[in-house]
């Protein structure tokens, strides 16, 4: 990083107006979200193919998943999205302290989500059910696992935002990182909202 850039807020460069940088960053994030959706879309397709092919088995295996824990996780993630919205709103008002608090709550929700997930995985492993048991579990672990990786990535980003807020980097004119990271966090949330009924509910509750 050259010395001339160090004086600028992150995301701003010598060759671009702040207003332009804001719109570019948002547009770039939307495009990135499209690639993420395409990534998960393939998994949904693959799931559909095998559910169609092995309907009875898929319904039987779905019943072994704990929909209550899945539901709890849904609530946790939705709540985290609410906290994220508050963080973005605080950043837009230049309230760095509030922003940091809301980000802490968001991070905590991510942590709770992962803890519940770990508990679920552990229960499955203790019953000798793993990714190689059959295609249903293979896909269950792949889809929730990949989603979990995204949650972890999102939490890493939130941790970075926290440090920016702690250094009072956000103002009414500069809040791009919080806003685009918020978009990303909502996407991670939305993907879970699709995963939950697909894996736990459809055919899962009798």
């Amino acid at each position, binding site marked *: 990083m050259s010395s001339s850039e160090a004086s600028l807020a992150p995301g701003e*460069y*010598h*060759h*671009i107006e702040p207003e*332009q940088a804001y*719109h*570019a960053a948002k*547009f*770039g994030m939307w*495009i*990135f979200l*499209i*690639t*993420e959706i*395409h*990534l*998960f879309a*393939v*998994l949904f397709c*693959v799931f559909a*193919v*095998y559910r169609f*092919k*092995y309907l009875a088995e898929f319904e039987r295996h779905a019943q072994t998943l704990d929909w209550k824990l899945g539901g709890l996780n849904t609530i946790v993630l939705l709540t985290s999205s609410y906290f994220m919205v508050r963080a973005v709103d605080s950043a837009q008002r230049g309230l760095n302290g509030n922003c940091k608090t809301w980000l802490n709550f968001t991070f905590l929700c991510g942590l709770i989500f992962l803890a519940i997930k770990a508990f679920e995985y552990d229960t499955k492993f203790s019953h000798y059910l*793993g*990714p*190689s048991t*059959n*295609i249903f*579990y*293979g*896909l269950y*672990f*792949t889809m929730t696992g*990949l989603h979990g990786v995204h949650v972890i990535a999102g939490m890493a980003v939130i941790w970075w935002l926290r440090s920016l807020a702690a250094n009072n980097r956000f103002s009414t004119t500069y809040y791009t990182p919080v806003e685009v990271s918020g978009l990303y966090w909502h996407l991670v949330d939305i993907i879970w909202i699709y995963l939950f009924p697909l894996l736990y509910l459809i055919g899962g509750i009798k």
Partner: protein
Amino acid sequence: MSEAETANDKLNYLNCEKGFLSWLMSIDHKRIGLMYMASMFLFFVVGGIFALAVRTELFSHGETIVNAQAYNILFTLHGVIMIFLFIVPGIPATLGNFLLPLMIGAKDVVFPKLNRFSYWLYLLGAMVAFFALFMKLDTGWTFYAPYSLENSRAVITATSAAFILGFSSILTGLNFLVTIHKMRAPGMQWGRLPLFVWTLYATAILQVAATPIIGITLLLLILENALNIGVFDPSKGGDPLLFEHLFWFYSHPVVYIIILPAMGIVSEIVPVFSRKPIFGYKALVYASVGIAGISLLVWGHHLFVAGMSNFARYLFSFLTFLVAIPTAVKVFNWVATMYKGSISWDSPMLYAMSFVFLFLIAGTTGIHLATLATNAHYHDTYFVVAHFHYTLQGGAVVGLLAGMHFWFPKMFGRMFNESFAKFSWLVLFIGFNGTFLPQFVLGMQGMPRRYFDYPPEFEGLHRISTIFSFVNGLGYAMVLGNLLYAAFKGKFATSNPYLSKSLEWQTDSPPIKDNFAEIPRVTDWTYSYGATQ
């Protein structure tokens, strides 16, 4: 000449900072473009050597220089290197990176650090790929299951490399899309964008839309190898055909990621060397976007004989035929641009014209392969090998060389030896056609692709192909040698030797660090050449 020499002493992006690190850490799109170019051609030479080894093995029937397994490894290495490390990043990463901001009047791409990160990812992916090459990878570059489930270590490493490279490609595409949307100079309306930029735009859409598909497919293959999740393993109820569907859902569009920018380069060169405005600008734009769109719908033609309903076969055959329409629009428009033009046959124009010629062969043989009845005969024969080499090498590589000759003085401020360039073009052209025309005949006669050995009656054509493949290799050595020499020792060039009107030529050659001293105002489209100028 003295004016040109002083121009070259001026501060530019090449001499403004010195040292290895100043390049590796650079966020200047021009330097990143050149670094891509250097690394890619290094890998191209390695992949080319593997190709010559494959051809040498096929020189006579029976074992010639290597055994069957070594042969499988050789053609896999050739494919993996050429596809993932050379031709897919190809034109967008090299000339695209260098020229896109210059052509739209911007100081850089919109996310310069992301651009540098893309290049680092590319280097990392290349390193992982080379690591895999030492692990006896013999699946072919397509990694078809269930065979790719047997040599787990090598497949996991190679597909991880492809995954990383895919990420690099996505980020480049994203960067280009946002740059084109948000960074155009005042007056650079969508209707005035240079056609090369339009093709980069269409390419970027494909990179962003299709690359995640291969990413997740390769990830599933990695998980299949590492954790036995069962989705592609028939012994666990999985479906290997599903892998082929998902694989080609990306890997067919990737052909257009590869070829569209080459078409863009030709669209830039033809008007300059015909001194005429490009014919049918809008049609060329729609054709680019149309090709990108249709390309997402045709993957099934790779599975005609793999097991598919008849309806799906008809549909995919029909959709594949449709690609011919926008492609033909392009060819006709280039020809119409040249009509009554004042044509000069400099080396970029020679390459551009040989692109049209070779790509025409590629396209028309593509129709043979899209036709269900003939596909049943040609499938997995040398006809296919010849067809896609005409597309990828005759199309994309020749297009890239056209662009490199055309923009060479822009990039380095120096000029290559023009008559040697023409001579090496001729060697290349003869070598290429001599290598691959016989392979069409071999394919028609039933010679299967990927085979280590063949009956003696195929020997004659294989020998011709092998001999010319060395001529082809010599051609590349001459071209690259000429350009490499000229980059350091060539005569200083004037700032716009081909008298092009587009924006990238309206600044110094080589350009200054931030491209333009002042952001230009665009008042007209690029292609307003008078026919008699």
